[in-house]
């Protein structure tokens, strides 16, 4: 598929990509390489200028979960109401919705915070609420657009670990956009390096390490060599774009 903005900017050069069920694919690249555009295309928030996106029937039936760069919560609603929003919009009966909300909050470790307002929570907890909201419709595909980019490293590492465990436990397929080579190395079963202007996929790296991964993986040989490989690939991708 291809995406050209109305102002003539070529956001994505023809890009072809297929993702298998259960993969954790991270997309890494410089700003302006069309990573976010790619996610928005898959989420149906914008249409491709050319080409198409095919989703399996299981993915289409359950809503796609989307986690934004910022928590993007309704400040006037409490945690429970925020997580329930997608169900409310689909007119899910209240009792059933509340049960799903409890379940989603439990999965992100926030079941005691249902009645807090977003401003009463830390940045990391707000992001967990955002993830719970994405999980509440039981999606098969989760799209995450630099979800932890604004958090401190300690919180980010913790959330990465929890996310890794969650995805493995539930067999989720994830497309994860990030600026961080280390985050991509820690999480992915497959990493895509993109280059900018126009955006294209520069390299596609499979990671054959078992998941979920824990803190010890960060100091493993595999992690270090993967990070070095991605780092080198990113550097050549940016050089190629600059020349």
């Amino acid at each position, binding site marked *: 598929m291809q995406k050209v903005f109305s102002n003539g900017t070529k956001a994505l050069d023809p890009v072809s990509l297929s993702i298998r069920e259960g993969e954790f694919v991270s997309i890494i690249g410089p700003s302006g390489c069309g990573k976010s555009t790619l996610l928005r295309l898959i989420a*149906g*928030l914008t249409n491709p200028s050319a080409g198409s996106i095919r989703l399996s029937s299981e993915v289409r039936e359950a*809503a796609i979960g989307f986690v*934004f760069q910022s928590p*993007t919560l*309704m400040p*006037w609603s409490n945690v429970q109401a925020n997580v329930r929003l*997608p169900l*409310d*919009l689909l007119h899910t009966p209240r009792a059933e919705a509340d049960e799903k909300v409890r379940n989603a909050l439990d999965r992100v470790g926030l079941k005691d915070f249902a009645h807090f307002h977003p401003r009463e929570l830390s940045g990391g907890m707000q992001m967990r609420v955002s993830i719970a909201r994405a999980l509440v419709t039981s999606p098969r595909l989760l799209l995450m657009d630099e979800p932890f980019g604004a958090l401190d490293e300690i919180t980010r590492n913790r959330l990465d670990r929890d996310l890794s465990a969650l995805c493995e436990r539930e067999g989720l397929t994830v497309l994860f956009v990030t600026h961080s080579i280390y985050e991509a190395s820690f999480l992915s079963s497959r990493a895509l390096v993109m280059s900018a202007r126009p955006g294209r996929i520069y390299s596609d790296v499979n990671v054959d390490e078992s998941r979920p991964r824990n803190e010890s993986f960060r100091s493993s040989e595999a992690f270090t060599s993967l990070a070095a490989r991605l780092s080198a690939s990113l550097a050549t991708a940016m050089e190629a774009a600059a020349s």
Partner: protein
Amino acid sequence: MKTDWLRFLAPVAVGAIFLLLWHALVVLNDVPAYIVPSPLLVFRTLVHDWGLLSGSLVVTLQVTGAALLAAVVLGVGLSVLFVQNRIIEASLLPYAVILQVTPLVAIAPLIIIWVDEPRTALVICATVASIFPVITNTTIGLRSVDPGLLDLFRMHGATRAQTLLRLRLPSSAPYFFAGLRVAAALALIGAVVAEFVAGTGGTRSGLAYQILQAGLQLNIPRLFAALMLITGSGIALFLGVSLLSRLALRRWHESEVPKEP
């Protein structure tokens, strides 16, 4: 805690000093009551004429309240219409601006002539005076929506009505309340001005009428007493709206969240 008391006591102290000064100047210079009455005399008149003045106060407050309600209902309604479609906004907003920039005293006589029922005419005048801040603020508020949340609503197939009720209206609340504070004061001013313009052709019952009558009769203490009631109503109205805003926003909006001690 200490600053809380100061915030309350400081303006009260300024007021008390002002009243003392006023009283002293009137008494020491032997100023006659038909030029400047002493605050004590104004207060005595307020008590003595309470039967007459309280009736007028109720009338003025009724006109103000009805106008403010109309301004909120019409203003929010128009704002909702504006954000549905840029063309609607572009075609109607200039007329709202014209209504705002035309002085009320200039159009009030026409409204009073056109509308038979005097009370209704006053309410219309006060509504015209107060609707503009409701429209502009609410419109800005309805547009100031987190784009991420808008995407989220779209992704889950939200209808226009769902987006309006669950996203746009709550987002606009802080802006709406800021507009409401201005509108409340303008509604009171509008009600008083309109009654002044209507003069003896008006309802013969509001506070502005009492001021006109007292002026003609050189009953300056009563004029002052009526003036005090108008000012007092304005302050009460402002505090009322502030309280409403606090109750609505204290759980989530920065402007009204209680400060940590």
